[in-house]
């Protein structure tokens, strides 16, 4: 068991996401930084998509009520276990009763916004429509379909016999291993979407050249950006259609909104582009008040970006397996 000690945690249980329920109006939810989730689970020898706690308001405190192994990834929050500092992006073992504390995200060489606590086996909440992810709207999945609060107790999935087991080591954060910046500003790659050509040339240019500030009205549903107004050539009234996380909608006001993990699965605003799936984790970690740049890409470029992250994860998996056999040999 894990007990939440923080009063207003705004943390949720998330796994890799809920797929195949769009037909009922249910979006994917899932970790905003899937790379962090997968890395934490790999360190522990868990299934890659196992459920974890996503924390986004700090400080955040919890207590382990069992001996277990855990991994911390995502934002570096100067974590301590019973007051002893823990390195970021690493796994460790803990005794029952130990208190884990995550402080404010540190502005080091990379600043994230969301921290992930994976535990050996994974967080055990009921699977709803194929996933343990919390979908706040409709109160699906997670712990009673809601954000965690003080006093909540989360059971852990018993580790499966024969699972690889945890390694008390760390990883280089993917944001450092695969950095993507333009003029010192965090960047993500974007594929133009259906209405891209329906915006003025100046607006299309601005999409690629402006730095877009992430406003405080940004959350797991969507990031409302502030920058130059994006103007359509003529007013557009769209018919409702399916959308996915990453879609950049432009409401009538002209300030874009990037749909994120809790985004509704359909919409009716014009779409100027879509942040590619391979870069969504980068955006998911962009703190409020920071700026992002959009890099135009094409289908092949987007696939290559996906291959890069997949290959990096494959390398992590391979080296962890090797390291595991070597450690066991000792």
């Amino acid at each position: 068991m894990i007990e939440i000690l923080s009063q207003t945690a705004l943390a949720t249980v998330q796994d890799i996401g809920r797929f195949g329920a769009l037909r009922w109006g249910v979006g994917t939810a899932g970790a905003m930084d899937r790379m962090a989730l997968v890395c934490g689970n790999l360190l522990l020898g868990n299934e890659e998509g196992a459920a974890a706690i996503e924390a986004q308001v700090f400080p955040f405190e919890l207590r382990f009520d069992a001996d277990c192994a855990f991994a911390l990834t995502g934002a570096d929050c100067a974590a301590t276990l019973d007051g002893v500092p823990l390195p970021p992006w690493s796994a460790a073992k803990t005794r029952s009763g130990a208190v884990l504390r995550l402080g404010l995200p540190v502005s080091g060489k990379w600043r994230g916004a969301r921290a992930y606590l994976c535990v050996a086996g994974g967080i055990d909440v009921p699977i709803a429509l194929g996933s343990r992810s919390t979908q706040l709207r409709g109160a699906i999945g997670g712990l009673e379909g809601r954000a965690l609060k003080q006093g909540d107790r989360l059971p852990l999935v018993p580790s499966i016999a024969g699972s690889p087991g945890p390694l008390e080591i760390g990883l280089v954060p993917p944001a450092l291993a695969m950095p993507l910046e333009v003029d010192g500003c965090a960047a993500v790659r974007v594929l133009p979407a259906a209405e891209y050509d329906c915006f003025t040339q100046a607006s299309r240019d601005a999409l690629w050249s402006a730095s877009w500030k992430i406003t405080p009205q940004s959350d797991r549903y969507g990031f409302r950006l502030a920058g130059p107004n994006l103007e359509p050539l003529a007013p557009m009234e769209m018919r409702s259609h399916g959308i996915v996380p990453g879609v950049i909608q432009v409401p009538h006001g002209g300030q874009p909104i990037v749909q994120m993990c809790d985004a509704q699965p359909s919409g009716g605003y014009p779409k100027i582009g879509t942040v590619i799936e391979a870069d969504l984790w980068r955006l998911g970690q962009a703190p409020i008040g920071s700026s992002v740049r959009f890099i135009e890409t094409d289908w092949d470029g987007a696939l290559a970006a996906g291959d890069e992250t997949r290959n990096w994860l494959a390398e992590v998996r391979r080296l962890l397996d090797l390291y595991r056999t070597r450690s066991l040999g000792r």
Partner: protein
Amino acid sequence: MTSPLDHVAEIAALLAATDIDCLELTGPAGHLRLRRGGEPEVTAGGTGDEPLSEDETVAMPSPGFGIFLRVHPLHEMPLVRSGDSVAAGQVLGFLKIGPLLIPVPAPRDGVVSDIVAHDGTLVGFGDTLFRFSPQP
């Protein structure tokens, strides 16, 4: 006593993950050189290169090979400086193998008297990383 010779296959596989072309390991059991595209060379017998104790300090050998890091890649400040008191288990540095960061913990409570290995350099199994004064 473990020897790198027991782990040649795994070390070679890990090495393939890096851009390291050649790795030389020296330990009590002998000397090992792994070269990319080459054959392993093994020289049997001890090297007589045992760590000597200076004053009350002991050498902290590297638990493996990798790039020695005094600073976590996310941070600006080194984990420890010479003269720092540390607790048993406290992470003093990392060995980086590709994307993996292997922590190097303090063996027991004490003082880091010297940081021998240079940040960002390749170290081999058994190379001295720190000199350490255990607390009585």
